[in-house]
């Protein structure tokens, strides 16, 4: 599974939405109406599943699922 696939799978646990509606351009707050607590919980789960550390200040720079995908892949590559 791609990283984006792992992210969208997790997002679908929080919001009822079809997989094809989730793209790199999806803004989870604007488009899916997730609140910031849900969003942080999703990121927290990615953190523990992938064994990486994500700074809260970094999160505010991430707007779309594509941004999150790029960020996590850069963390894993580092």
């Amino acid at each position: 599974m791609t990283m984006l696939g792992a992210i969208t799978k997790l997002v679908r646990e929080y919001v009822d939405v079809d997989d094809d509606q989730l793209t790199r351009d999806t803004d989870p707050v604007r488009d899916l109406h997730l609140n910031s607590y849900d969003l942080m919980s999703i990121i927290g789960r990615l953190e523990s599943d992938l064994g990486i550390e994500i700074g809260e200040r970094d999160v505010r720079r991430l707007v779309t699922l594509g941004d999150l995908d790029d960020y996590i892949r850069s963390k894993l590559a580092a």
Partner: protein
Amino acid sequence: MVGEASYAYVVCYLAVVCTGGVIVPLDKELTDAELADLIVRCDADAVLYGDELHADIAGILAHCPRVRLTVNISRYAPESHRPGFDALLARGRQLLAAGDTRFAEVSIDPDAPAAILFTSGTTGPSKGVMLSQRNIVTVIHSAFSLFRFPRVCLSVLPINHAYEFNLNVLGCLFDGITLCFNDSIMHVRENLGRFRPEMSLMVPMIVEALYKNIWKEAEKNHMTGYLKYAVALSNGLRTIGIDLRRVFFRPILEHFGGRLRVIVCGGAPLGPDVVAGLTSFGITVYNGYGITECAPLISSNCTVRSVPGSVGVPVPDLEVRIGEPDADGTGEIQVRGPAVMLGYYRDPVATNQAFTEDGWFRTGDLGHLGKRGALFITGRQKNLIILPNGKNVQPEEIEEALLGGIAYLREVVVHELVDQTGAPRIAASAYLDPDWVGGVGFEGARARFEADVAAVNQRLAAYKRVCLTNLREQEFEKTSTRKIMRHRVEGALA
């Protein structure tokens, strides 16, 4: 001081205020530019920061020429980011061992400013609320007059908020209660399991999410019907004095660590269905009301008196009155007493406007005093947007950012709009330069405007970002003094 909740944060806070200094807790979610602005505005000489800011701190301080000292207060920061908190602690111990008792001999003026907390004001940029030690001690006394706190609490809210620091952190220290820190909002569930608290202070967004997850989990496990039946049975048994909630709902309560009994919820209104639902599972939720300018607690439902739908009775140390009540008794909630702030830092005009002629603080919130003296909130006089996470957003600040960043934007009103899921969002309703719109077409203008709003959003703290936009074909309706009639805007968009 800006950083994550930690033991070091609390020690540094107390070290500053116990030596006659003034602490200015800042929100770590703010952008670098916003942090620099507040550091300058509060005339800070020193900046204490958590390691998360390490990479950004030099850039921030480049705009703060007055700052002479910076300390990374994270105990677990990499060696290269130190010396930090432990070095400060060691130096202090060294001085004490050498007989330097200046720390202990500082004379404290209880009515001098001890903390400045930046909050959204009624107009323009955020204001620095000056609180004295008397203000803070009063609020702790008020809280302990209402509640019997359990022995283990979990701190989950941003530690720079008066609600979290004055009530939870200082309250726990005052009463010898064990306080556990949630290291990140990302890890609330894990830390509930790790620390197994009996109580926590929360905001509606977290409480609602935890409650929603109970039912989601039940649905996933095909247990919704069983759970509804168990709730009905348990509620029935409670009416005849048999309380088996902690037995019936043990698997649910385990998600909260197994021992959580009390949640005190403030910052924004919480739905009565969530309060009733969690109570059915064995977790009592007390709704309260406060404002930073009152350090912050004004009223709360509590162990001894709880009135559904209200924000509880005013605390014993404050007087609450309703200013200019209408026929139903509703008017502005006004407060007087030793927890009310000293004023806004370097802003005598705003300070003067915040008080009535006879010295009562004007909260800007509308409400009435109902049965058994309980306070009911019915609305706000200010334009302030209060999000479910308790964050306050000043629309004028976002409007200024949009107008400054989008050249063809003629008029804009930022306001709260409830989306189709029932959640409040920050929305911007805009009127664009008609000549420019004529050139690119309405659809082209819409696409460009949304892209430009997204660009402005990048410069704002995440919680202040505009989620919904709406374009108008006409100018906003205005008063005779050419001010936009804001209250007409929100209805038009719904």
